[in-house]
């Protein structure tokens, strides 16, 4: 039996099958954690001026919870790996010790994910009278 007939007997899968499994393997998780959602919303609120310092301030102002710059960067990196945000390097200024800013922007996939998360949370909220009672 030559190699040609062997390949006919055991056909190798087409390239797109390998591509499918490779994609499946590297496909990021697509749900958002609580802090991820907060960071995404802060980036959306800030539009063009979303970089580390304003993002932290936005979170602290609106949630009343202290956030460290390191934890925000770790979350932003995770979101970028999931393709929910993209980043670009900005200008360096003297008040930053000559270091460049890194601006973040929410992608279309990110916006879709925020919307899906909101819908899911709203549905979970519905029909829970214990949470609708307001404190006297």
């Amino acid at each position, binding site marked *: 039996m030559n190699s040609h007939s062997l390949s006919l007997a055991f056909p190798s899968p087409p390239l797109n099958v390998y591509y499918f499994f490779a994609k499946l393997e590297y496909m990021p998780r697509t749900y958002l954690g609580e802090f991820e959602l907060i960071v995404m919303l802060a980036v959306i609120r800030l539009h063009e001026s979303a*970089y*580390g*310092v304003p993002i*932290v301030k936005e979170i602290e102002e609106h949630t009343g919870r202290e956030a*460290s*710059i*390191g*934890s925000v*960067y*770790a979350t932003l*990196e995770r979101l970028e790996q999931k393709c929910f945000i993209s980043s670009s*390097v900005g200008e*360096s200024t003297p*008040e*930053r*010790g000559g*270091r*460049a*800013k*890194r601006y973040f922007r929410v992608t279309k996939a990110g916006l879709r994910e925020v919307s899906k998360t909101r819908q899911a949370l709203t549905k979970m909220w519905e029909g829970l009278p214990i949470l609708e009672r307001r404190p006297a």
Partner: protein
Amino acid sequence: MKTHPPAIATWLLERLIRRSQREALIGDLFEEFIRRGSPHWYWGQMLKAIAIDFAHRARTEWFAVVFAGVWITMLAQVWPHIMMTLGSQPLIWLGIGWPWPLSLLCYVAIFTAATTVSLWIGLVLYFVLTRRFECRSLLRGMAVTSVLDLAINTGSLFFVGRHRVGIYMISWLPLFVALLVSMIAGRAVGSRGANKSTA
């Protein structure tokens, strides 16, 4: 109000944070420091950023975590034999027989040397196994190991004084962390040489 953040903290950030985040993160900390003017805040943010970055690396570099765990477990098993071998050397007893505090310093030096060499062997083995055996990586890893190990052994002196237990009651968890940190710090140099960040 201070206009420059603590230089040592910035120096540590420049060396211990991954390249992909370093520039923007240090710039942000600098900018916020100018507004707040609090070195205490800056040190706190620096420690948190380094801890978070190392936690991220530990998650992605699982082989380093497993290797450090196995090495430290093995070391804990053979440690009594190492101590017995060291204890049979008359030269060591000569140093320990000196008056206090020289005897204590000698004691700490012996233990630090023994644990540091044990961690160095683990470090070399790790770099060989991961095929990242570069002089710069190894030297940096060894330097980090030595500093951390000395800090652990010196820190344990306070524990000795407070709880009246021998310094030989070393805790293996700090040594595990020391080995892991030095492996990751060494790898960071290697990957910088290859012009990519350790993600």
